[in-house]
């Protein structure tokens, strides 16, 4: 345990680096944890004092994010990605093997404080899984041999920097490139165009291109930017963010935010964009800043992609040196800079208003909408939030105009879309397609001969069976943020739906009851069926709860949390039916087993110390 002076020093350093600004609380907590291994109570006290905020706010934020710990969690923390694809590729067995060899229970730190082995939501590596985060750094392509070596390294206490480099190798796996990834854009061309054409000129091109957001919802980018550009900070509704921002006098401050949370299971295309095309993304953000008149931008990078943090900061520094970022960009008088904020393991922070809360150093709880971020975003100011891919495309459109882009794709879905393809296919990876491509075509290209089902757009999207493979990927038909998970004929779709249900139950932010309770009841119902105790009554209950969760939840997470269950009940009923027992009712837990602990404690084994299910 670190002593009080060490704690104080760590807090002082982190807080000072972030200007003692409560809006940077998430970043401060992360740095304190880096220094101390976890965030002890004393650190919470110190942070509250330095930032002059209530202690409960600090503790509340610490408790919200999965990657923050209030107690030691092992010198090595190994978290296996729980994505269904990796699950099917042997994640449970690998995790079990590692636990057995290290003599630890899953999710529990070893007695000597050496190691903790557990699971975490999809880490964006399902094209090269099974994968795990080791002290936050992804290790890919796990197999029994790799697990064995990792066990030895852990037991010998070898620091991560001395582990074999190929363990940490993350491939782009770019399989099909089109206009975005296939035709390089000269560095700075987008920014130059933005400076030359000005706000109106660029906005007209974006509008002409028909570009729609690539994060999933598909909102027209030009409309969003125009709303933000026109939004005037009236100081109204500032109660939602506190009195500090009620500033009627100053000219309206606006922000550009890039959503790199990429938490939808099975999605990893933003990882590839950030790894190999970050300049394009930053360029797009700068273009957006020029259009709406922003001086400050944020890249909200999911904690799982932390391994890209230094590299991205390096690229930002280079852009500043090249006059593409910072004060007086390209001598035009336009100034804009970008800061990278790291998330800390929370899928909900991909939802734009939760993301903004997180940027402001709070728990990632979605806000009421309206007002929308375009008028009341970061610190209550007009803010544009877009997906990584949207910005990359915007940079291209700024440089090359909107016309050529509009000619690609379909009427309402112009241009190309990056797909993250994983699962039962020969060539998983990132594929760029013009919108309108059929699922069948994609399956043929990635080498999925034996597909039974495809989960399009991740757990919150749509699952389709063989009969629907001629459907098209486009906002007009199958909208997608890019996740494309393939299941072959041997796969059990029920298990996929169950995995997704536990994902949502785990990631529900807990703010509203329909989702917090509903997602857990759905998970429990699926677990009951999986254990062979499900009845038709349980299925009816799943449907009822699913409808309720969908209709009553506060944000998109809860509204889609029941999709996997409801859709698979509809389309893959056979996978459920074979598990059900023909009884009117069955208790949801093993009654006699639930008495076992008390039997052990009391030493009883008489008839009254048992109950039967019937």
């Amino acid at each position: 345990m670190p002593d009080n002076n060490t704690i104080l020093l760590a807090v002082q350093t982190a807080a000072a680096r972030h200007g003692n600004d409560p809006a940077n609380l998430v970043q401060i907590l992360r740095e304190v944890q880096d220094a101390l291994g976890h965030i002890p109570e004393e650190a919470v006290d110190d942070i509250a004092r330095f930032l002059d905020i209530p202690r409960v706010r600090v503790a509340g934020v610490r408790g919200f994010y999965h990657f923050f710990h209030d107690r030691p969690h092992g010198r090595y923390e190994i978290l296996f990605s729980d994505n269904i694809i990796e699950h099917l590729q042997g994640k449970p067995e690998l995790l079990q093997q590692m636990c057995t060899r290290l003599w630890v229970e899953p999710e529990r730190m070893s007695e000597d404080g050496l190691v903790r082995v557990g699971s975490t939501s999809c880490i964006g590596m399902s094209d090269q899984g099974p994968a795990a985060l080791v002290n936050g750094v992804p290790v890919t392509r796990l197999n029994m041999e790799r697990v064995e070596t990792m066990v030895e390294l852990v037991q010998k206490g070898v620091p991560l920097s001395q582990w074999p480099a190929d363990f940490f190798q993350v491939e782009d796996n770019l399989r099909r490139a089109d206009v975005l990834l296939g035709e390089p854009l000269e560095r700075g061309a987008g920014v130059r165009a933005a400076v030359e054409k000005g706000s109106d000129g660029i906005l007209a091109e974006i509008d002409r291109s028909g570009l729609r957001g690539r994060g999933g919802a598909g909102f027209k980018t030009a409309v969003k930017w125009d709303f933000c550009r026109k939004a005037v900070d009236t100081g109204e509704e500032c109660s939602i963010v506190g009195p500090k921002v009620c500033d009627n006098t100053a000219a309206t401050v606006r922000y550009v935010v890039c959503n790199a949370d990429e938490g939808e299971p099975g999605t990893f295309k933003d990882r590839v964009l950030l790894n190999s095309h970050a300049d394009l993304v930053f360029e797009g953000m700068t273009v957006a800043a020029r259009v709406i008149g922003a001086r400050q931008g944020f890249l909200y990078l999911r904690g799982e992609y932390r391994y890209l943090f230094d590299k991205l900061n390096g690229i930002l520094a280079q852009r500043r040196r090249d006059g593409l970022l910072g004060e007086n960009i390209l001598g035009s008088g336009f100034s804009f800079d970008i800061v990278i904020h790291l998330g800390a393991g929370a899928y909900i922070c991909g939802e734009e208003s939760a993301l903004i809360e997180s940027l402001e150093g709070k728990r990632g709880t979605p806000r009421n909408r309206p007002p929308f971020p375009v008028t009341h975003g970061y610190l209550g100011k007009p803010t544009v939030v877009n997906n990584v891919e949207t910005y990359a495309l915007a940079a291209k459109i700024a440089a090359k105009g909107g016309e050529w882009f509009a000619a690609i794709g379909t009427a309402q879905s112009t241009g190309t879309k990056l797909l993250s393809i994983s699962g039962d296919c020969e060539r998983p990876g990132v594929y760029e397609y013009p919108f309108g491509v059929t699922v069948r075509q994609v399956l043929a290209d990635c080498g999925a001969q034996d597909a039974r089902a495809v989960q399009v757009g991740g757990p919150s999207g749509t699952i389709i069976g063989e009969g629907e493979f001629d459907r098209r990927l486009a906002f007009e038909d199958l909208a997608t943020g890019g996740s494309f998970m393939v299941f072959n004929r041997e796969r059990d779709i029920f298990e996929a739906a169950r995995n997704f249900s536990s994902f949502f139950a785990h990631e529900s932010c807990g703010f509203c009851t329909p989702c917090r309770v509903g997602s857990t009841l759905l998970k429990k119902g699926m677990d009951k069926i999986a254990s062979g105790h499900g009845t038709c009554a349980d299925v009816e209950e799943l449907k009822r709860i699913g409808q309720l969760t969908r209709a009553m939840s506060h944000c998109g997470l809860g509204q889609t949390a029941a999709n996997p269950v409801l859709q698979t009940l509809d389309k893959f009923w056979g996978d459920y039916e074979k598990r059900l027992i023909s009884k009117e009712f069955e208790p949801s837990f093993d009654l006699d087993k639930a008495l076992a602990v008390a039997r052990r404690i009391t030493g009883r084994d008489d008839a009254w110390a048992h109950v039967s299910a019937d």
Partner: protein
Amino acid sequence: MSEQKKIRVATCSLAGCFGCHMSFLDIDERLLQLLEHIEFDRTPLTDIKHCGPCDVGIIEGGVCNSENVHVLKEFRKNCKVLVAIGACAVNGGIPAVRNNIDLWECFQEVYHYGIGLKNGQIPNDPELPLPFDQVHPIYEVVKVDYFLPGCPPPADAIWKFLTDLLAGKTPKLEYETLHYD
């Protein structure tokens, strides 16, 4: 009406505090009105030990031990309509707060470390109901037909619920009788 056979009702409290029963009594003089139409089987008001064939069974409290299961199953077997009344029966309620505490720690706290305890022993008499490792809402153990939420549900909600049921209608409660903020 008096010609008609009376509706037979049984009630009991499992892992509850009898607060819901108290709230039931709060219908006050309307109880007499009710008794024109119903008669009681097993309830805390009668001295009947086992529930016989009934029309309506009303359960307060969740399931925390083996005896609760036996009682609950007896109710389910004998009652045409089974009603979960109050937060504990519906969700586990206050007793379920112990679900986050290891049972062994609970026992130790009660029998070993409690104030004034010396050489405390953990009782193991077969007559004592054995506690489950967790407290459960009753719908996890038997099929439940109706849920009447509240901690406790107000007397008016109970009255409305029962009179609807007696009138042969699906009980319907106004939002005002169901929300507590």
